[in-house]
């Protein structure tokens, strides 16, 4: 809809006709912000366009393809599905575009996937397999649901009731228990009681990300209600993808604002940073590492809170009522850095592409499942970047990032240690 009633509802691609039709091909979605451009190396932040090169893989191409889909000029094909899904929805394009224009690139891409699913053409077969597992076993691995809390060790104190509820997530529960344990122990060490969900189910990140919005919304509704029942004031996550799903996609799907969830959604790094600054947590043991920090997309540029909006668009493309766009400005960029700088012995070196210019690890939003080679390639790019700045370790705030980096480092023989930030925080508490 170019003029008239419009909303940010991603279930209707028509809402993004204006955005898709106004892309000017400046490739702000592809290049690192020119202010931060570091030269001829590490100059792009769109993994899809950097990998596949054809314009169709950048947002500038996808917006045009999106218009064709909207106008019924484009038939579904393998190539179209690859164009839509060989993309981590990392948000670099969205933030890049909003440096100067305010086009809703990310939402357009989400809406295109939702439409593909609605039209019976998407998602990719690999996604459907995972979806089945999520719906069946409430985790994306298809592991037994009853094993979800097996990560817990005896030395971890879990409260019956607390203001903070730690949402562990599938990865930390099943494949990365070190993250769950570290997070729990950090909370214990900080004297912050926490509870767990009585029956934790997958957050449904994958379902929403690949466009299976009906299933995702059902899951979101259930999960939100379950949290509300616990009376938790704060939902804590150690997984960036989960963080984004709860903070942004749940309100989006439920047509409420982040504030209306009834609880705050907080990432471990936000909490730990606050605790350190309040001196409620002291990091005293040295961790002698020259490391670099990888900004996980979902914690950083994708994590501005959500407010639903509907209104009208009129002359010159102006909307009313006024709309405060999500531009990635309030992402969690600094707290993880402050935490790392507070750990004795740590030497933090920044990669060339950092904060809102970070190059996605390649794993998220269905990419790892359907395009593992692409995910591996993106991780390899990032590890190379880390090596170039002389880092011996790379730190992330998301198990998806961590796993992808470890997998690729192993395959390529890259001599780079990979950590989740929770592990380093714990190491500096416990030694």
């Amino acid at each position: 809809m170019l003029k008239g009633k419009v909303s940010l509802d991603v279930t209707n691609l028509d809402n993004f006709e204006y955005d898709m039709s106004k892309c000017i091909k400046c490739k702000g979605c592809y290049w690192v912000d020119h202010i931060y451009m570091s030269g001829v190396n590490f100059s792009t932040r769109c993994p899809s366009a950097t990998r596949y090169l054809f314009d169709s893989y950048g947002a500038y191409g996808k917006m045009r393809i999106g218009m064709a889909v909207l106008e019924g000029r484009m038939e579904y094909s393998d190539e179209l599905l690859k164009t839509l899904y060989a993309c981590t929805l990392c948000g670099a394009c969205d933030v890049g575009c909003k440096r100067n224009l305010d086009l809703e690139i990310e939402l357009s891409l989400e809406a295109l996937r939702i439409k593909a699913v609605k039209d019976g053409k998407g998602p990719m077969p690999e996604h459907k397999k995972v979806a089945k597992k999520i719906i069946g076993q409430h985790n994306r691995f298809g592991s037994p649901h009853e094993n979800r809390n097996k990560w817990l060790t005896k030395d971890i104190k879990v409260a019956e009731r607390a203001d903070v509820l730690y949402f562990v997530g599938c990865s930390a529960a099943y494949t990365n228990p070190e993250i769950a344990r570290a997070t729990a122990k950090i909370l214990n060490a900080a004297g912050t009681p926490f509870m767990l969900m009585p029956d934790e189910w997958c957050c449904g990140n994958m379902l929403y990300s690949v466009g299976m919005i009906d299933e995702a919304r059902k899951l979101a509704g259930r999960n939100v209600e379950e949290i509300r029942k616990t009376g938790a004031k704060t939902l804590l996550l150690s997984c960036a993808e989960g963080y984004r799903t709860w903070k942004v996609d749940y309100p989006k799907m439920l047509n409420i604002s982040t504030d209306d969830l009834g609880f705050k959604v907080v990432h471990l790094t936000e909490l730990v940073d606050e605790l350190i600054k309040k001196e409620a947590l002291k990091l005293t043991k040295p961790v002698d590492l020259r490391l670099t920090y990888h900004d996980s997309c979902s914690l950083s540029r994708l994590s501005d809170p959500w407010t639903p909006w509907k209104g009208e668009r009129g002359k010159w493309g102006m909307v009313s009522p006024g709309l405060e766009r999500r531009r990635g400005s309030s992402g969690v960029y600094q707290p993880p850095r402050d935490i790392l700088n507070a750990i004795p012995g740590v030497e933090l070196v920044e990669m060339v592409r950092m904060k809102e210019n970070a190059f996605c690890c390649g794993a998220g939003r269905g990419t790892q499942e359907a395009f593992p080679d692409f995910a591996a390639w993106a991780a390899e790019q990032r590890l190379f970047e880390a090596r170039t700045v002389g880092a011996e370790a790379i730190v992330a705030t998301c198990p998806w990032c961590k796993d992808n980096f470890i997998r690729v480092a192993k395959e390529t023989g890259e001599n780079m240690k990979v950590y989740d930030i929770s592990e380093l925080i714990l190491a500096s508490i416990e030694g």
Partner: protein
Amino acid sequence: MAISKEAYKVMEAIVGGEYISSDPVVCEGYRSGPGGYEAGLGYERVMTKIPGCVIMPLTTEEVQKIVRVCNRYKVPYVPYSTGWYGPRSHCHVEDELLIDLKRMDDFEIDEKHLYAVVGSGVIYSQLQEEAMKRGMYIIVGGGGSQCSAIANMIGDGWSPLSYRIGLPHRRILGTELVLPDGELVEMGSLALQDDPFWGDGLGPDLRGLLRGFTGHRGCMGIVTKMAIKLMPFQPEKLEPTGISPHTSLQLPVNRVKWINFTMPSKESMKKAMFEMARAEIGAGATKVPIFWRAIAKASCKEEYWDIWSKESEETIRDFHLLRVLLVGFGSEEQMEYEERVLNDIITEIGGEARRTRPSDESWFKNADSAGMWLMCGGYVSVDYVIETLEHALPHGENYAELKKKFTPPLMPDYGDPGWFQSFELGHQGYSEFLVYWDPDENTDGVDQFYLETSKENIRKRFYTSLLGPHQPLYLTGPAYGPNYHKWMLAIKDEFDPSFICHPPVPLAHDEFVEKAEWMRPMKDWDSPKLP
């Protein structure tokens, strides 16, 4: 298949299967519009097509081979670096090959001899940063730092930083040009050596084929490599700061400083520019169009309109903001000297310094050019001319009058007489007119205005960027030179006898006028039947 199977197969063997495609999804990704430069205008709607095939070569040799294959199989083609320039750099005919040059991103820099060698895939912001790291700088053309450096150097290529440096034409050193028939011409020192450090021709200078005042938009061959002059800068870092969208370069104010001055009149701005040039100080001197100030203040489109709607013809008429850049190229002492001289000049003329942020969001790394679309969704610089300040000011006033007749559909700008600035230390002056419209409304008036501007320039004897492929060639041709079009077409015919390099450019705008019913009544000049 949109191009012949035989041609496709041969080309696939040249670049490898991964770098060629005629898939409809891939090709759709290369559609010109509807958004972009000249967004939603008639030219884009009537004249552009999506490619029939896209190919991405890596080397000059591959480009040559591809062009020869096109000549053999009569496949029309268009070179494409970033696609930024809008419809004029996209396919215009069916079953056309789009040669996407983004893989040609080789880069070398010779700090001692002040030049860099780039392929077509290197953009200005990359080049600027590599230069600045080494105490040098370039002019990032007004199109933005996302422009391919080569494409802009042969197309446009100026900004307020051209105050000292002037025309981009002089910054082109050794260059490779693949002619439309596939022959390679190496220009400058490359003609004799494997070293592109120098640009002058061997005798007559064939860089004359690369462009005119503005460029050929890809219809006269493909530039695959170019050495570009870098200029000495100063040693301190311009520190990038902020989180998107509020990113900017913090200036080391002891060596780099913008200063805004409120001036009593337009004439006084011209005088200030004259005196600065006479004193040989400064690194930039430009009038600031008032709506840019509104864009800079606004956090979104709606806020822009809130600010803008409070302006009027009076406020525009009384708004005279001069923005001056000082750079201590040689030393801090030099900077201080220039600032004292500048203040002497401004005081004499009756201007007043305003508080100016010690940052740059625009001209060094030119991160702001995309913001031109924020206001309305549609934008074009309808004319931009390097001539003299004495040309720039009346050109602007004349133009403002003409613009009123076409407002709406143009955005109301209360008679703003365009943007002007000083170039080449006062030897030249510059005027540019930016217009905006809502691309989702009837834009026929914008197309007509564009052509009317061209006619007005001819009537009033102004020089213009609207030459060559930018306006009907048979309209402007007889009026400038006279008959420059005859030579252009003769050169085109010599090097592209099959007319397959970006057809029908440079006659595309002629064709547009014939094809578009809202343009036809404006045709009051002679032209032969178009090929």
